[in-house]
């Protein structure tokens, strides 16, 4: 039996146990997926505090909705979908209360962005401190629509395949590719403006 099938069977058993209210299954699921959920939330939101809140929110939702999980997709895909939706809801609420753009960066940040160079040059991290770089990445992502942001994060930060993304977003591969293409172009434009 290959590893993938083995994992799939284990996952199904866990989900069945969780549906029956087995506490140990609940803890096992947290152990298995907490870092994945955290990583996705951090990449989406850009800071520990918000990512922590999302992790808690996601697992609570999983426990609440597990009985409605029909198994049409894998549990992992379902979990990704819940995480993405929680992050998007969180950002929508945040945008409603406060919006900031790349132009709002302080002059020091702009100076650092001006140092950025194309791919054949050293990586941005060579010029910037992690915190500054993180702020710039978040600002650039904030300028994307949520649709573009989610696909960029899933592909570029999480390294998910086209197929995985299409399952999570419940759309076909063509849509994934065109959306990803447009998101990259848009992000490249935003960064280019700052490089000049």
């Amino acid at each position, binding site marked *: 039996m290959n590893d993938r099938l083995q994992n799939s069977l284990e996952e199904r058993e866990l989900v069945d146990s969780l549906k029956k209210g087995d*506490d140990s299954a*609940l*803890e096992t699921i*947290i*152990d298995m997926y*907490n*870092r994945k959920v*955290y*990583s996705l939330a*951090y*990449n989406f939101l850009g800071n*520990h505090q918000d990512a*922590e809140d999302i*992790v*808690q929110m996601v*697992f*609570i939702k999983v*426990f*609440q909705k597990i009985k409605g999980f029909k198994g049409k997709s894998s549990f992992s895909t379902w979990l990704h979908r819940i995480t993405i939706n929680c992050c998007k809801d969180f950002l929508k609420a945040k945008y409603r209360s406060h919006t900031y753009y790349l132009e709002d960066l302080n002059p020091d940040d702009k100076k650092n962005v001006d140092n*950025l160079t*194309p*791919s*054949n040059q050293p*990586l*941005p*991290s060579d010029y910037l401190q*992690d915190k500054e*770089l*993180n702020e710039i*990445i978040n600002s*650039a992502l904030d300028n994307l629509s949520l649709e573009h942001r989610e696909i*960029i994060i899933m*592909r*570029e*930060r999480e390294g998910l*395949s*086209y197929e995985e993304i299409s399952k999570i977003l419940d759309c076909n591969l063509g849509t994934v*590719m065109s959306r*990803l*293409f447009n998101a*990259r*172009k848009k*992000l*490249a434009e935003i*960064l*280019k403006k700052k490089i000049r």
Partner: protein
Amino acid sequence: MNNKCEETKTDLMLYFDGELSSEKVPDVEKHLKECESCQNEFKQFQSVRNFLKANPVPEHNQEYWGNLKKRIVTHYYNAVAPEKERKNIFQFLFSKPAFWVACLLVLFLITFMFKGKENSSDLLVAYYPGEKQTSMPKLKSIKYSEELGNLIVMQPKGTDTLIIWFTKKQI
């Protein structure tokens, strides 16, 4: 950008993401070498990738991971699960239409019984000052009121009852 570029666009994306089938790779690489426009696009995508990957997710402290499971489970059982129980009670009520029909029937019967009593007591109510009733009854809305010698006749709104108030004790 020519027609060949348009044709190669999808394959270029797949190639960039490592999802292109191996037999198509030589064609895309050949086109990339020849086409400056596609080269620039490719470099642009590469820049975006480098930029985004330059700052990986920082490792969170061990204390957070150590307490995470306990925190989520505690929060779930202390706050979320009891709330769910409460919701379940309401769901139970709403999922039992017979219960609500019975409630409505009981309400209807009670209303009918009281209405019947009111109709049957369509009579004059007299209040005597001095003994039990010491002051005139206060009525919020009076449909009709008239003073006739030593008595006042009143009819409260929405009733068929007449109230007669004797201003002097009758012998």
